[in-house]
């Protein structure tokens, strides 16, 4: 192995300042920001409010609304397939429920459909990479649920709304928080190894924007542990999964109902027709679109495919202008640039400090507030550290060992410790250099409480369901830590339950791709001239070394 030397010498003056102020800071808590000040900071510094980064959508249900250029580019793109080249009479897979996606929402939907009586061989999961290669696995920090005496789903509800600046869909939030304990119980019964006290009490920590300690975790592999257990159960139940076979277009029938999807075998390039009575979109978010050129924490396949597909059959979207930048992406070493430094580091006590070793924000404000504060500290006040890729501020991780005892990092943050150790940085002894990174799609497809996808008139699109990051409403314009693992398991479950009932009422007509023809006409009418095609399935990094 090449020995990587850790931080370069020009960082060390600053690191020494961080060490000098540490003792004093250990006794201090930076004051929480008042509501008005938070709003002002976010409006001034959050990338969502940067001018020239968005434009209105010109076609479809979301017409007239602003979204980042990278998103609009795909919403206004041509279909990937030519309807004339697909033989819809040649049905390759005929099932009751088609689930598009291979992450936690998709796996939950499959499991709960099966639990509710749909035979495994009447369900089909299709996914673009391997089953489980999804952002779910990368979620390190935890999953929220108000399950302790001092806490209440009511409190959780109010925290979620406050975090989302009160733009959330309250009905969906109520479901999220009241079903949270049920989901934790379900996962515990499946054998998920939550961090517990010897008597079984869940070890729960705080999270940004949370008023109570309700973050459940499994070390810093929480998402990995939940995902692999869900996967294991799906495989035990022998629910079929088609890997390396992304959906590239939905199929509709001659009565205008959604009736399955066209999937592409990425290795052979062949298209396959899946007919289904219910179709669940659980494709995750858009991190790999690198909005505004930001690095991302997201997995390789996070390209917003599901939103594109749903949009062409008339789905309404919401809050697509709102992007979550995780405040603490790695800023050093350059090989890790943009990678997630879990919020748990801050929840365990690490403070954010500038080049002079001074705190500039309470570390557990909601994510958009912390991100904005870091950007202000660097761009405006010039109190960040300059690196070859940009800027960074210090996340003082050694504080965790001091506050909670030696060995805490190894026990609760083994993934982080390992990642940085490879590059010669020992986060138990040295602070971590961080900068905001593109993390989460706050908005998405509009759904109702049955996970039915809604159109511009808030009417359900027949037979189409969606769950997880591809949907909007639950988090409003900003998601709190620990609510995404919760969202996918809660709403994935609901998708499974409601589709299992829904399919009993469905009869399908003749399969068509009429909506694609209609879409092409709409593009023409809107005078949109582009060569772009969507979904893009995977980002193209050939010859490009910027992004990880």
């Amino acid at each position, binding site marked *: 192995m090449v020995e990587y*030397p850790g931080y*370069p010498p020009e960082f060390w003056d600053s690191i020494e300042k961080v060490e000098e102020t540490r003792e004093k800071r250990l006794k201090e808590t930076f004051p929480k920001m008042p509501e008005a000040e938070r709003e002002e900071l976010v409006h001034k510094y959050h990338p969502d409010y940067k001018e020239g980064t968005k434009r209105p959508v010109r076609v479809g249900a979301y017409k007239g609304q602003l979204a980042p250029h990278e998103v609009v580019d795909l919403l206004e793109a041509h279909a990937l397939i030519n309807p004339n080249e697909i033989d819809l009479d040649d049905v390759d897979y005929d099932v009751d429920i088609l689930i598009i996606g291979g992450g936690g929402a998709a796996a939950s939907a499959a499991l709960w459909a099966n639990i509710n009586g749909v035979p495994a061989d009447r369900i089909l999961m299709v996914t673009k990479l391997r089953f489980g*290669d999804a952002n779910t696995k990368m979620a390190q920090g935890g999953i929220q649920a108000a399950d302790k005496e001092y806490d209440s789903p009511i409190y959780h509800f109010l925290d979620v709304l406050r975090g989302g600046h009160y733009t959330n869909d309250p009905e969906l939030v109520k479901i999220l928080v*009241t079903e949270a304990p049920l989901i934790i119980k379900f996962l515990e019964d499946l054998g998920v190894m939550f961090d517990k006290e010897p*008597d079984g009490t869940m070890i729960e920590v705080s999270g940004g924007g949370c008023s109570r300690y309700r973050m459940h975790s499994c*070390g810093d*592999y929480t998402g990995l542990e939940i995902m692999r257990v869900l996967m294991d159960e799906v495989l035990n139940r022998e629910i079929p999964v088609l890997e390396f076979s992304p959906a590239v277009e939905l199929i509709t029938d001659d009565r205008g109902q959604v009736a399955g999807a066209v999937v592409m075998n990425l290795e052979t390039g062949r298209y396959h027709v899946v007919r289904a009575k219910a179709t669940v979109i659980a494709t995750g978010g858009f991190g790999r679109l690198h909005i505004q050129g930001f690095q991302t924490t997201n997995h390789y396949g996070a390209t917003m495919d599901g939103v594109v597909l749903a949009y062409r059959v008339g789905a309404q979207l919401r809050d697509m202008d709102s992007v979550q930048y995780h405040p603490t992406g790695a800023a050093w070493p350059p090989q890790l640039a943009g990678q997630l430094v879990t919020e748990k580091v801050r929840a365990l006590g690490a403070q954010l400090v500038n080049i002079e070793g001074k705190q500039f924000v309470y570390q557990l404000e909601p994510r958009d507030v912390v991100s904005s504060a870091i950007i202000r500290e660097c761009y405006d006040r010039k109190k960040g550290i300059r690196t070859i890729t940009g800027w960074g501020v210090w996340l003082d991780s050694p504080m965790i060992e001091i506050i909670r005892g030696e060995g805490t990092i190894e026990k609760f943050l*083994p993934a982080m410790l390992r990642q940085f150790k490879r590059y010669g940085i020992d986060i138990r002894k040295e602070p971590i250099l961080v900068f905001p990174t593109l993390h989460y799609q706050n908005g998405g497809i509009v759904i109702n409480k049955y996970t039915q996808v809604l159109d511009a008139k808030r009417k359900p699109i027949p037979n189409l369901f969606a769950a997880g990051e591809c949907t909007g409403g639950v988090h409003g314009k900003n998601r709190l830590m620990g609510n995404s693992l919760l969202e996918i398991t809660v709403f994935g479950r609901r998708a499974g339950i409601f589709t299992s009932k829904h399919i009993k009422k469905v009869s399908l007509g003749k399969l068509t791709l009429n909506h694609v023809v209609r879409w092409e006409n709409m593009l023409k009418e809107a005078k949109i001239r582009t060569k772009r095609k969507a979904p893009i399935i*995977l980002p193209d990094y050939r010859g490009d070394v910027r992004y990880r």
Partner: protein
Amino acid sequence: MIVLGRRTKGETPKEVEPRMVTIYFMGKAYQVPEGITIIKALEYIGYKLIRGVGCRGGFCGACTTFYRKKNDYRLYSGLACQTPVEDGMYLTQLPFVPAERRKYDINNVKPDVNTILSLYPEIARCVGCNACTKVCPQELPVMDAIQTILRGDLAKAAKMIFDCIACGACSMRCPAEIVHYNVFQLVRRLYGKYIAPKAKHLEKRVEEIENGNYEEQFKKLLSMSVDDWKVLAEKLQKGEDIVL
């Protein structure tokens, strides 16, 4: 001043053209910038990856890579998204790990070694060669975990290999042909479901929710204005309790 000790100071990164190194991907030589990860190097030379790539953050185990180095007989293994290229590296990525997985019903198994031996009897063939441990990119005590399972201590084993990302490197090297990560998945679920103590407060809360205990409060809450919510939410932030 609190200093917890540190490593030696590194070198100043220079903003000059990166030094190029030669790597051999499936036998072909390519020049790539030094220090970038194997995944980035493959994209740099023109591959649009489909297999052998996943989360790109060291969590999913999709990009298992085997390699040798110049003047070195050893076979190395690592995650392509986490391993920087080195001059003279010969490498290939595993597109897939052929592995047998045995079906079981989690509600109908006993949390003991016999369950594991009946599903995966081959673990008894472990010869203690430690080849698995040597290739683990997570630096887990793989062989020790298998031996711990054989001794019947599932609780200990589950914790030893909790950080497994199922990359399969161990299983490709094992002379006893054990598929470690499937065995470990079973062990962890047995521990999580049967051996770890249950959270009693969770059970209580689930019962309360199923009894509809919060419905009345939610009814009130949902009829309130955003301004009311704000007042309540800020109270909670101050640590105060609220009653509806």
